[in-house]
């Protein structure tokens, strides 16, 4: 392990990117294993959300039999093959857009830590000023691929709020990783019922931020369209607006929640993890047309980001990653702020130190059910109207479904949509009955 080797020893080799291997070759071999493991872990986690059940199952049938059983249910082989096919790259120079927030961690860290390079890609990451601009630049074909909010590819594919451009989600960038931040003067107003008349910001209309904030205040009996004001403000400008007293709070992406604390302007009211543990946040998206034109390049990008997500999933790597993405070229933020976000040991702005290791998580699989939940909220708040064919829309956009279609063709029984339960503020979501879910809310627009 080169991390613990003496760096002054002329015999020691320090050539591995993550610092856990003796040589670059060992690192690469391990990265491949890691990426396969990430997929298998995701599937196992989905099948057995509770560790106890998984252990019982493994003990009962044995690890090898379990592997076989799961492989017969789920085309792990096909997915792994897809992640390993190394055809000739159609396009080596790839332009990827991003917003400087920690949600973009896997796609940003892939550049300084060499994940793109390893796939033979010459990536230029372009920092972008706001989500509407990201949308336009993806639609204008200025970007080959981009960091997108998880609901954006769905909205863009349906033409909600823009032209309809078919999009695909390769991976979910991160889950959790947001928070509700309030101005310090509101530190005694911790009950959302007291928030009538507050001015809140979210980064974009088609964002988890918007839907989670609406959900949260609606649970407290406030109508987000009447009782509070929700504005669209680009993430970097949220802190400045909070300082200028132009906002009472925001449900924003990190590092801007932690930054408000660090600059002594606001405090973290709750992490979005407490609203829905494991909710998706941002995604890594491409135009469907682009995937068809550049399948090998797409596969290479997919491998790079998947590998990065696997590394980011390890808590022991988080400090390395914080240092890699902090420079002005990427997030342009103080390292201590990023460390607090990524490690989950943070100052809450009220004098307390909290320790929440899964404050941000990196689970790259774009489960259908997540997309369906997003669509139910778009329907609930009037962003989409009429009958919505939830399932088929999500299946077209989230690439997980591509695998499922292939399974059906092969005659393999597909597992139910994401066996892991989606529980938002104590309420269980059944992805097979989206309309009933929408109808069950007292406060809604539709």
């Amino acid at each position: 392990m080169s991390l613990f080797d003496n760096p002054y020893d002329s015999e020691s080799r320090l050539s591995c990117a993550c610092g856990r291997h003796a040589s670059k070759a060992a690192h690469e071999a391990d990265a491949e294993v890691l990426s396969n493991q990430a997929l298998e872990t995701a599937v196992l986690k989905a099948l057995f959300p509770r560790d106890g059940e998984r252990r019982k199952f493994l003990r009962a049938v044995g690890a090898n039999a379990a592997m076989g059983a799961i492989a017969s249910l789920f085309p792990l082989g096909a997915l792994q093959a897809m992640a390993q096919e190394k055809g000739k790259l159609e396009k080596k120079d790839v332009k990827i857009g991003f917003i400087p927030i920690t949600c973009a961690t896997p796609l940003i860290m892939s550049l300084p830590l060499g994940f793109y390079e390893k796939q033979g890609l010459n990536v230029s990451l372009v920092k972008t000023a706001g989500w509407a601009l990201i949308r336009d630049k993806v639609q204008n074909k200025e970007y080959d691929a981009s960091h997108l909010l998880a609901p954006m590819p769905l909205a863009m594919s349906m033409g909600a709020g823009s032209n309809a451009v078919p999009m695909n989600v390769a991976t979910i960038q991160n889950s959790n990783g947001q928070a509700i931040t309030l101005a310090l003067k509101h530190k005694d107003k911790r009950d959302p019922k007291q928030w009538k008349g507050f001015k809140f910001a979210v980064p974009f209309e088609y964002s988890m931020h918007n839907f989670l904030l609406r959900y949260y205040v609606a649970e407290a009996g406030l109508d987000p369209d009447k009782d509070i004001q929700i504005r669209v403000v680009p993430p970097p400008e949220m802190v400045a607006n909070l300082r200028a007293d132009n906002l009472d709070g925001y449900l924003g992406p990190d590092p801007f929640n932690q930054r408000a604390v660090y600059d002594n302007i606001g405090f973290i009211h709750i992490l979005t993890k407490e609203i829905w543990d494991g909710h998706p946040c941002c995604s890594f998206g491409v135009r469907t047309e682009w995937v068809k034109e550049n399948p090998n390049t797409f596969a290479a990008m997919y491998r790079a980001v998947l590998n990065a997500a696997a590394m980011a999933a390890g808590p022991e790597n988080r400090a390395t990653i914080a240092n890699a993405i902090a420079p002005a070229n990427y997030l342009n933020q103080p390292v201590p702020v990023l460390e607090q976000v990524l490690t989950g040991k943070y100052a809450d702005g009220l004098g307390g130190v909290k320790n929440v290791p899964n404050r941000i998580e990196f689970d790259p699989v774009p489960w259908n059910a997540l997309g369906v939940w997003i669509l139910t909220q778009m329907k609930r708040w009037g962003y989409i109207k009429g009958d919505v064919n939830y399932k088929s829309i999500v299946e077209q956009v989230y690439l997980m479904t591509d695998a499922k279609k292939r399974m059906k063709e092969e005659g393999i029984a597909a597992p139910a949509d994401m066996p892991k339960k989606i529980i938002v503020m104590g309420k269980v979501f059944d992805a097979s009955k989206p309309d009933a879910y929408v109808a069950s809310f007292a406060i809604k627009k539709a």
Partner: protein
Amino acid sequence: MRERAKSWVLSLLLLAAILFAWHLASLPKAGPTAAMDPEYAKLMGLDKPKSDGMPSLATMGTTIWKHVSNPFYDAGSNDKGIGIQLGYSLGRVALGFFLAALVAVPLGFAIGLSPLVHRALNPFIQVLKPISPLAWMPLALYTIKDSATSSIFVIFICSVWPMLINTAHGVASVRREWLNVARTLEAGTFRTCFEVILPAAAPVILTGARISMGIAWLVIVAAEMLVGNLGVGYFVWNEWNNLSLANVIFAILVIGVVGMILDLLFGALQKAVTYVE
């Protein structure tokens, strides 16, 4: 000469007063670190001095030196030295301004020469002139489908009007006697335009160009903040993103100085073509 020396002294005194006020405003305030849990203080970054709010004069000095001493560094596609950023902004302004001059001067000539064209185009000019250049941005992004071209278009559209109106005004107010003399000398339209009207109207046209350049420099910063990716405006946005006031103030100073130099250049040009009647 003594007057000039006096004005210099006054300017320096004003500068000193401003700097002193700045110094007083940015004096460090004693924080409540002592009573705080040391771990919490560390997470808040209070164990080390950190820039909080208004930078002190010393911080400002080091910031300016850091940027000025290494203006052309290139640390990746989103982090380049201030010299490179300025180059991008000036290039965009020059291109948009040049295109605007290409349209505005001939069109201004036509309007100035022909009352008919003037009356026909006037309503359009009156409606389009007061539109804020940045209001064009979303439309430009949507139709042009390229952010770099869009920002050049925005420079173009805001530079066109002052040049157009001034050219038309300059051409229309060339003294009748000169035109009559040209006519008696049987000079052709082309020759009259280039040898009589253009030199006569040149100072007014350049006044228009000077105003246009000033507006273009104002607009590019805003446009780059909106569109991002290189340029002085992007630099300001990126440092705002980092809430670094010292860097933002540095950028403001640079924008001011460059704007002043541009204005001086056009002033000199204007002087060169002005004639004494």
